[in-house]
C-alpha cells in the first residue's frame, strides 16, 4: 500500500473519472504549496489526466489555456483569451520545443492560482505528445509528495519556523505524555487532547486539527502513532497550521 498522499491523489483521479465534480463548473484550484513550485503543482494536476480530455486553465488575471491530454501525456496546447502562447503539439523528440513549452507553462503557472476545469472528453492518445512526467523531469520538478516527517522532526521544524510565536508543546504516545512551555497553554493543549481522545475515532492517524482559543491557537497532529500538540499566539495560528499542513501532506 502506498503513502496516504499517493492514495489520496489516486482517489481524486479516480473520482474525477467516475463522477462529475460537485462544484457546478467542476474546477479545481492549483497553486504552489510548501516546497512545491507553481509549475510542479500544475504538472502534478495534469499528470492525473488519464482519459482523453481537454482542460481549461485560467490564471488569476483571467487568461486561459486549453490543454489536450490523454494517458498522462500532453498532446496539444492552445491559447485562449488573454494568453500569448503559440499553439503547439509537443513532440517528445523536439528538445528545444519542449524547453519552450516548459517556459510557457511555468510563466502561466506563475500567474496563478490557476483554476483547472474539464472542458471535454474527446480524442485518442496513442503515444503522441509528451509525458507530463518527462516535462517535470526536464525541469527537475517533483510531482509526488515526500515522506511525512517523524513527530519529533515535525516539532523541531515547527519551532524553527516559528521561534517567536510558539508557546508550548505536548506529545502523547501510548498513554504517556511529555510537554513543556507556558503552563496555561500546556493546560489548554492537554485538555483538548484529552477531550478528543474521549471521542472514539473522531480524528484518526494522519490528521491535523486546529482549535482556536481566546488566548492560544492550538494544533494537534495525529501522526506516527503520536499525538503532537503545539500552542501558539492567537495571531500565529494560521502560520503554524500552514507549516504543519505542509509537513502532514509531504510538501515541507
Amino acid at each position, binding site marked *: *500500500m502506498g503513502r*496516504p*498522499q499517493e*492514495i*489520496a491523489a489516486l*482517489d*481524486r483521479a479516480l*473520482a474525477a473519472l*467516475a*463522477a462529475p*465534480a*460537485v*462544484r457546478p463548473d467542476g474546477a*479545481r*484550484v492549483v*497553486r504552489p*504549496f510548501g516546497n512545491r513550485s507553481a509549475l510542479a503543482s500544475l504538472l502534478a494536476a495534469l499528470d492525473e489526466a488519464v482519459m482523453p480530455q481537454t482542460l481549461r486553465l485560467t490564471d488569476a488575471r483571467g487568461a486561459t489555456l486549453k490543454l489536450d491530454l490523454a494517458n498522462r501525456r500532453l498532446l496539444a496546447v492552445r491559447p485562449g483569451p488573454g494568453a500569448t502562447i503559440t499553439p503547439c503539439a509537443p513532440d517528445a523528440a523536439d528538445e528545444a520545443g519542449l524547453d519552450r513549452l516548459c517556459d510557457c507553462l511555468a510563466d502561466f503557472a506563475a500567474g496563478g492560482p490557476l483554476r483547472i476545469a474539464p472542458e471535454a472528453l474527446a480524442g485518442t492518445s496513442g503515444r503522441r505528445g509528451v509525458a507530463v512526467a518527462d516535462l517535470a523531469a526536464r525541469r527537475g520538478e517533483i510531482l509526488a509528495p515526500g515522506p511525512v516527517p517523524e513527530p519529533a522532526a515535525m516539532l523541531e521544524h515547527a519551532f524553527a519556523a516559528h521561534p517567536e510565536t510558539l508557546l508550548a508543546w505536548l506529545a502523547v504516545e501510548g498513554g504517556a505524555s511529555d510537554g513543556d512551555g507556558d503552563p496555561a497553554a500546556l493546560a489548554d493543549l492537554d485538555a*483538548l487532547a484529552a*477531550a*478528543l481522545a474521549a*471521542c*472514539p*475515532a*473522531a*480524528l*484518526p*492517524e*494522519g*490528521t*491535523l*486539527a*486546529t*482549535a*482556536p*482559543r*481566546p488566548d492560544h491557537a492550538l494544533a494537534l497532529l*495525529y501522526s506516527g502513532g503520536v499525538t503532537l500538540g503545539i500552542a501558539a499566539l492567537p495571531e500565529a*495560528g*494560521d502560520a503554524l*497550521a*500552514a507549516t504543519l*499542513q505542509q509537513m*502532514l*501532506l509531504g*510538501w515541507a
Partner: protein
Amino acid sequence: MTQGLASIAGRPASGRPRSGPPPALARRLDAALGAAPGADACAYLDVGAGLVLGTSADPALPQEALDGLCRAAGPLLDGAEGEAALVVSAAGLAALLAVPGEAGTALCLLLAPETPPAEARAAARAAVAAMLSAKGA
C-alpha cells in the same frame, strides 16, 4: 493506516441513496456553499447531539466522515468565539465554525487539503454569514 482518508476525506459516496435535508435547510446550505470559494460541500451539524442535520452536496458525503467531524467539533470549537477550527488530512480539509444564534450547531465546510488555513477560515466565516442571511430570506 489509511483509515484517516475515508473518515475525514469527505469524499462522495457513490451509489448510496440518501434523503436530502428539508427544503429550507437545503436552501441555506446552498447559500453557504455558494459563498465559500473553493468549497466542495458543506454540512450543518448538531454538535451537542452528534448529528448531521443536513448536507449541501449531491451525491452525499459519507456518513462516517461527518460523524467523526461531529464528534471532534465539540472539543475543537469549545471556547472559540467566531473562529473556525480546521481538520486536515491528505484527502480533504474541513473548516468548522459555530453558527451564531443557533446554539450547539456548527457549519462544516469541505475544501481541498492544500487550502491555506487563513483562506479556509475566511471561507467558513463567509459561508456561515450567507447561511444566516438565507435564514431570513
